[in-house]
């Protein structure tokens, strides 16, 4: 999916330390990475590569919903865990923990990413928008209004991720067709089966004409 950001250390605003780019630099294949990483990092062999952080907690600053938040996280900490555990922003849900369900979707510079597949350390200065930051004060985002009006939720556990994917869709395409909505949430799994109402919700939001501005 082209709108997904490649997080392999290529972003200029990134913190400059990426596990994947480091391992690539060290000439390791993905298959060998897991076993080798602890040894390499532990033995300090990374000294010849980019800056080494960890294994203990490292202070970082995340820009979340418009506020700079200073936290300490171990390098293994995902963005999802940092949001949920360190910042108590539990609207972001972790369901599959491996990038196959999109329940943990947040926006990085407006682009939807799986926060369970993003290291907190990799975010750098990029602006993070979570489900808690989508509304402007009491004024809900048009997608949130649409979700309530169309009842696009049941248990609600996929809802945060669905809303974030749909908000990003309306930002780049203010008047999507039903097919385009289905395409935009095709990575968002819902076990209750709310998909038809999700589409209704986004159509409702697009018709309200406020989708893009939020």
């Amino acid at each position, binding site marked *: 999916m082209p709108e997904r950001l490649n997080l392999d250390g290529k972003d200029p605003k990134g913190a400059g330390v990426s596990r994947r780019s480091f391992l690539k630099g060290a000439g390791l294949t993905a298959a060998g990475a897991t076993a080798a990483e602890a040894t390499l990092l532990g033995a300090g062999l990374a000294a010849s590569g980019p800056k080494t952080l960890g294994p203990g907690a490292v202070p970082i600053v995340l820009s979340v919903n418009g506020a700079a938040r200073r936290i300490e996280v*171990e390098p293994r900490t995902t963005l999802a*865990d940092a949001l*949920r*555990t360190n910042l*108590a*922003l*539990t*609207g*972001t*849900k972790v*369901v*599959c*923990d*491996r990038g*196959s*369900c999109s*329940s943990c979707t947040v926006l990085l510079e407006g682009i939807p990413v799986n926060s369970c597949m993003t290291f907190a350390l990799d975010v750098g200065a990029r602006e993070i928008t*979570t*489900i*808690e930051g*989508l*509304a402007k004060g009491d004024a*809900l985002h048009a997608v*949130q209004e649409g*979700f*309530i*009006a169309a*009842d696009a*939720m*049941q*248990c*609600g*556990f*996929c*809802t*945060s991720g669905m*809303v974030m994917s749909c908000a990003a869709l309306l930002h780049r395409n203010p008047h999507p067709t039903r097919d385009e*909505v*289905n*395409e935009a*949430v*095709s*990575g*968002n*799994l*819902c*076990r*209750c*089966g*709310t*998909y*038809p*109402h*999700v*589409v209704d919700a986004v159509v409702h939001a697009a018709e309200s004409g406020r989708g893009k501005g939020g």
Partner: protein
Amino acid sequence: MAPPDENVPTRKVKLNFGIAGASLTEIEREISADEPPPLPVNERLKLIGKPVTRWDGRQKVTGAARYPSDIQLAGMLYGSLVSATETHARIAVIDTSAAEKHPGVRAVHVVEKILESAELRDPTQEIPSKYPIVRYAGQPVAAVAAVTQAEAARLVEVTYEKKPFVVDLERAMAAGAPPVFPAAADQEGSAGGGGGPAGVLQTGNVRGPMKRSSSPEAESGIDRSFAACDVVVEGEFRTRVQTHSCLETHGALADWRVDGLTVYSSTQGTLGVRDELAAIFGIPKSRVRVLTEHMGGGFGSKFGAGNAGVIATHLSRKAGAPVRLFCTRKEEQWATGNRPDARMRLRVGAKKDGKLHAIHLVSHGTAGVGTGAGVGGPIHSLYDCPNVLSEEHDVFTNAGPGAAMRAPGHPQGCFALEQLMDELAAKLGIDVLDLMDRNDSHAARREERKIGTRLFEWSRRKPAGSDKGPVKRGLGVAQAVWYRFTNFDAACEVRIARDGSVEALSAVQDIGGGIKTVIAQIVAEELGLEPRQIDVKIGDTNNPPGPASGGSLTTGSITPAVREAAWKARNELVKHASTAMGLPAADVVLESGRVKGRLPGQKDVSFKQAAAMLATEQISAQAKRKPEYGERAGLRLGGVQFVETLVDTETGIVRPVRVVAVHDCGRPMNLLTLRNQVNGGVIQGLSYALYENRKLDRNTGIMVNPNLEQYKILGSRDVPDIQVHFIEEYIARSSTDASGIGEPSTIPTAAALANAVHNAIGVRIRELPMTPARVLAALGKVPAAKGGAA
């Protein structure tokens, strides 16, 4: 069944009876004198039956809704499970010393008893062992509580003595198969919804037959009944194991303190969790509080405390701190429940006139180390047939236990029965809907067939396999049967404070069906307020008892109690306000946020002003579910679904394009949340029909798809156009006459799709999921897979 309340004064009332717009009439019932007056049909109500938006929608779309797995308490520890890596083994040693020495570890617990599994009838027959015998890969063995979401569980070393195992149905049934249990075992039907009858004959791994028949003659002479038939159809049908795949995994945050236990549990039955924990830990129910403000999906798998909940409590007690323990995705997929598979041999016989005369089912299914793989419901309950016999078997395998899953046994049973009805109609040379009409006296379904025929334009249906070209279109239909269960431990308290605020309280939990919204609608309807003005506080065992949400019984059980409590609170308010307003109580009406005299010009105050007239700070009324009105006998829910599909005969891909789902649920309470739930039932049914299949590796017994990308559930781009229609059926059974929709909405979907596939390609697919490989094999384009992978 509630015990009849004797010596309670009664009165006679006239209640709506029949289907609105088709057969509506009135019936007289004798009801308890303190029940609210009869409720008019939905058309004459302001809120009940209307598409009211979800009461907690704002919380859910802003991330403010706090699920049990979101709760963080001061000093909270993170629990993680040590799951068995062997499929069948005796544990020789569990070495926890390394874990205990880890600086972040605060407690280690070794599991002493496994829940949700069958147990030996005679415990002395168990293999001698210090620890529970491992009978499936993924069985909890131990657990660790630590200060971070640590890896300390990996430090627990388990030494296994491996035993032979068997994970698939046919091999487990074979003579000489490795025994899953050393002797006969039972898993009695429980609040968890799993399990079945005890004391059943067991041979090797096979329990059964469990026989059920329409008459002694059917049991002894079903072959004679078939001999008297003019037309007989038969076939073998297979369905696969489906996992619940709840998005929020099973688990709890347990906080054990000297003065009591508080548990935030992701459950569909707060009271069941409380009762189970009280029993296991030997503490009074009054000292256990279970909280479930929101929960992320259950589908039948989240009734009791579960292994995770009990282990979290043990860890909290040992550590002296709150412990959060939620299963990982992998643990969720392999060990927390599933819909058992089924191999069904079914025969259906009819007379020349299309009247069913005999049905015989022999079924085998595996719920792993549990029981409850029966599929006989539909053949006994859907059609009128004089001679019906089912012989059901549970087969033990070394696999995670089954659990109740949305209409246990019914999607499986319908998959077989409704395909044979389709086949029988073809043999008789009549339309299948005509065949249904001749054999189905259920009033709601009769009306639903009529409505569906029109909405779906059933007359478009062509003879099977007659479509030209490689991509063929087919139309199919199938029906549901479910039961109007009621849990009489359903109560509600409604409070009105002197500032005009209103609360509704019950232990009942909202699993996503939207009962919070319906409670708010009812209370608001009685008090003349808006739903959002009612503070609905549910999912807390400190409140009056509420039913577990399973079997589509929540709405039917709790709504009459809610209405009665709201009505009593209203009367209390009116008593105080009318005196202050100088009006007779009987002349006071509550509507649009006003409390006023019936006639123009009479006193008219806001609800808030009326509440200020209360003599005390708060009034409160509580009510519990009353017995059903009238004789209670075999009340059933229906549902008819029509599916249109495309089948690509070159790739084998089945692509449903349209579904018309016509359903009944008594008085529909909220058309918006109901439609959502039926969409979900259809979508889960299509997902079951096309994709879902828990796969265990035959050589290791390990689940090879314990995740959400290889265990496939239906995604947004696979959803067809779904049109949902409700009939409004009154049966005069309670003060709301409402019922549920969760189960019936998923029962007929797979069968209707299978019938549509047959109509498209002229070949019947008798095995789920209907993958491209199975479709191509059925078309004779590729060889069938050998042995049917487990």
